[in-house]
């Protein structure tokens, strides 16, 4: 297997499903973010209940090669609690908006998690020893008679069952007036950015009481507000470069070397609108819901409501590739507007060697778009295909005209089942796909 490569000749098969298998979905269990760490050994999910669950990949077992991608629960903790802002009379949801792993710095693992307002740095560490031996009491807590103490005892560490602890190390508060939509760790390993609807702040990972505002698009008069920031990300290698996308479908690239305030962008990526496609919904569907740099740093991918675009950082006037995710919905925009689905924020991700991208759709479908062969496939995360190592069958949606065999009619798509969050293992062909409250893990079929 080529590391993380493979186009659509990869056969995806079911590996695991996490979460309750019943139709009654508790609001708190809805998965709100999925993220692999840099080695792919750990997979974190955040949910609307403010919890973070971390899965660990089982160490390779030679006798059962098919089990190599089994992810099991490693640690679960409550990252955020619901709060109330008394000054503004606002409830602050505990929902985890984003999780970002830090590059590993020592034996422990670190991640940033954020809800609408507060970013937290968590340490996940293992402990396999504990101290034993007291002077004044027995190990079970009974006190000894102080008069019988004739010598001093120093406690000793003894091995114990492995314990995984998650502890909050830093809490970054009061940096945002609006809702945080993105966090991104800089390649310098000491700073990260956080973006809300109108501002982007730069933080030092060790300093919690102040951050630098690098972008502020808030107009003096809020009535003049025409666009908001929807996502932001640092370049994977160039510590001075970051991009942010807007609700108007533009992406701005900023160079922090040029000045301390990045109100003036260095590059503006924007595709001229096709006048023939113009409609009432044009502006809404051109809003970018996610932006991701490729691993090599040459490209970036943006997701809007109907398409995925890939931009070369050296070409600002149009994307180098455009993929339709579910073009058949163009005729349905009116009803999607009525049921608010048109505002869904789909995310997207690259595979390990940037040759394939993945993004979600409705009806628990997700799309694999192969860049080199210009081929795409629609797969489904469903309980019907929950048999171990069962190969996923491509799905087709009838785009009008006569419905062929195996095709699904647009009208029978379930818009309540949507895949917003997906993640691709950084090296291998293992993907994590979040349906409402289930996390599906698929992997390349090994023969």
């Amino acid at each position, binding site marked *: 297997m080529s590391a993380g490569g493979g186009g659509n000749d990869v056969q995806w098969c079911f590996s695991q499903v996490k979460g309750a298998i019943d139709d009654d979905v508790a609001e708190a269990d809805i998965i709100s973010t999925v993220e692999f760490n840099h080695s792919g050994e750990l997979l974190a999910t955040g949910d609307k209940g403010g919890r973070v669950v971390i899965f660990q990949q089982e160490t390779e077992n030679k006798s059962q090669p098919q089990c190599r991608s089994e992810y099991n629960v490693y640690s679960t903790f409550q990252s955020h609690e619901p709060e109330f802002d008394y000054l503004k009379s606002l409830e602050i949801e505990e929902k985890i908006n984003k999780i970002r792993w830090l590059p590993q710095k020592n034996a422990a693992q670190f991640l940033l998690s954020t809800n609408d307002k507060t970013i937290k740095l968590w340490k996940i560490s293992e402990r396999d020893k504990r101290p034993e031996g007291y002077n004044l009491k027995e190990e079970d807590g009974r006190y000894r008679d102080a008069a019988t103490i004739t010598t001093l005892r120093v406690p000793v560490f003894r091995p114990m069952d492995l314990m995984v602890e998650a502890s909050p190390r830093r809490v970054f508060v009061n940096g945002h007036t609006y809702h945080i939509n993105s966090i991104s760790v800089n390649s310098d390993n000491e700073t990260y950015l956080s973006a809300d609807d109108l501002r982007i702040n730069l933080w030092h990972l060790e300093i919690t009481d102040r951050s630098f505002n690098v972008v502020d698009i808030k107009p003096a008069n809020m009535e003049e507000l025409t666009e908001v920031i929807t996502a932001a990300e640092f370049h994977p290698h160039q510590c001075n470069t970051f991009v942010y996308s807007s609700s108007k479908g533009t992406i701005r690239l900023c160079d922090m070397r*040029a000045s*301390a305030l990045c109100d003036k962008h260095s590059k503006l990526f924007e595709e001229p609108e096709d006048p023939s496609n113009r409609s009432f919904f044009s502006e809404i569907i051109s809003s970018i819901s996610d932006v991701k740099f490729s691993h090599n740093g040459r490209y970036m991918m943006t997701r809007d409501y109907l398409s995925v675009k890939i931009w070369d950082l050296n070409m600002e006037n149009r994307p180098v590739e455009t993929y339709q995710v579910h073009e058949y919905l163009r005729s349905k925009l009116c009803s999607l507007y009525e049921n608010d689905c048109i505002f869904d924020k789909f995310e997207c991700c690259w595979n390990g060697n940037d040759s394939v991208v993945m993004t979600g759709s409705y009806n628990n479908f997700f799309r694999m778009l192969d860049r080199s062969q210009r081929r795409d496939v629609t797969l489904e995360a469903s309980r019907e295909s929950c048999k171990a190592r069962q190969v996923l069958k491509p799905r087709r949606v009838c785009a009008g005209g006569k419905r062929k065999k195996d095709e699904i009619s647009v009208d029978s798509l379930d818009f309540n089942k949507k895949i917003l969050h997906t993640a691709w293992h950084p090296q291998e062909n293992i993907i994590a796909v979040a349906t409402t409250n289930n996390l599906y893990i698929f992997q390349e079929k090994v023969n």
Partner: protein
Amino acid sequence: MGTGTGGDDSLYPIAVLIDELRNEDVQLRLNSIKKLSTIALALGVERTRTELLPFLTDTIYDEDEVLLALAEQLGSFTVLVGGPEFVHCLLPPLESLATVEETVVRDKAVESLRKISQEHSPVDLEVHFVPLVKRLASGDWFTSRTSACGLFGVCYPRVSSTVKAEIRQHFRTLCSDDTPMVRRAASSKLGEFAKVLELDYVKSDIIPLFTALASDEQDSVRLLAVEAGVSIAALLPQEDLEDLVMPTLRQAAEDKSWRVRYMVADKFSELQKAVGPEITKNDLVPAFQNLLKDCEAEVRTAAANKVKGEVLPEDSRETIIMTHILPCVKELVSDTNQHVKSALASVIMGLSTILGKDNTVEHLLPLFLVQLKDEYPEVRLNIISNLDCVNEVIGIRQLSQSLLPAIVELAEDAKWRVRLAIIEYMPLLAGQLGVEFFDEKLNSLCMAWLIDHVYAIREAATCNLMKLVEKFGAEWAQNTIVPKVLGMANDSNYLHRMTTLFCINALSEVCGQEITTKHMLPVVLKMSTDQVANVRFNVARCLQKIGPVLDSSALQAEVKPVLEKLATDQDMDVKYFALEAISGMYLFNLPTYIFSETFSFSSILFFFFSFSLSP
């Protein structure tokens, strides 16, 4: 040691301390760690080495504050493990502390390691310490490699030449580490490491590393290299600077990233010192001009702070500033950024001493005047706060016509913090402008502040009066300010009446006994019948305060009856402060009474009791 003696009571406190090393309460663990030396002393050197230290080595799971305290303690633990002979026993716990993720803990562990490295014999250093440094330097995690960077410098001078070569090799490797964290650590320790290296190796080893780090892809690494460049330049002979260091420094001053240029501007004085006057004149001055004109305000701010050019060669300093720096300064005066202007305002006055009287009048004075009219109060304040520099050169009179409107405007600024700031410069201004000018122009301002609606301003104004009297003397006080202060005692606003009392508190001592007794005391006493309780109890406090200035007859005849009356006031607070004043004052004056014939000690006591017993 107490270990052998059975059923020893003295063991109990130690036993508690040891048990609390693993208490669930962080505060208790912290307390125990801070008394680690007591525990070690009780255990004795042998058990400290064999039991306590292994336990501590494994405690790295603890909270940061506990680990920080532990790292610090271990730095002075040598005696407790048996002296320099056994100092290497401290290495394992410090090694594990040097790999934790918290920077403060790691830094403290490195600091302690550096400290105890000096207590190693040369042999132990090579047998125990250097291997530890190498282990850290080749550790899997970057936390350990960053810690290693700080340790090379302390062992290098004391090891054999083979080991020296190894150390240099390790340092080289870390300078090109994959992670920016390690390169930053290496970059920040490069200067320090260069200092302990032989000059030949500085040229052959350090210079290439410096050049590489200064062109690192990460801004954060490059900017640290600037500081290293300063240290390295100081080590090299003058003739090598041009070839080895200057190209890199020149490049840094023109770096694409403003943060790097900022660093150059910020370290400019040190840089000048390190490269000497010749290079400064030919090379750094043009670079500095560019920094003053930089497109990023942060850089201009840092550069503006350095316009005085302290290290320029004595003979050409004036010319250089006149021809090269001053034109840039003239532009900065009308910069768009307030921080740039305010940085400039805080140093621009210093130029006058360098440029002399004529140049100051011709070139600088117009700039001062522009800055005195700046829209940002901070800029104006910075000019005013540095007036003394100009006063020495041209005398302040030249400025006074423009100064006055600026002061008046600041004095009436809508922001009380601005008003507060200008009040603090009043004594300085008064001293330089002279009493005449002050009386004429500024006195009314000082009085107006006394009735400001912000308490902090009234308080500062009171304190200001005291300082003015210290400058101008009691007679001046009596003629100009005392009448006005006392006049406020009849004000209809009780806050203003209280201000009178606060002023008297501040002024009585500097004004002396005569003025206090003759003029102030009657007013205070009269106010004891004020209808507002706050005023009355402040009368009590005021009397206590001015008591020491008054003579004893006034105290007896006038103050005592009033205090006695206040002590029976209906208001609880008035009563409290009156009693407090009575006890405070008589205790204060106790020695005088004891030795005077009219009073005996017992009568004072009686006097005392009669008050405290009265209902």
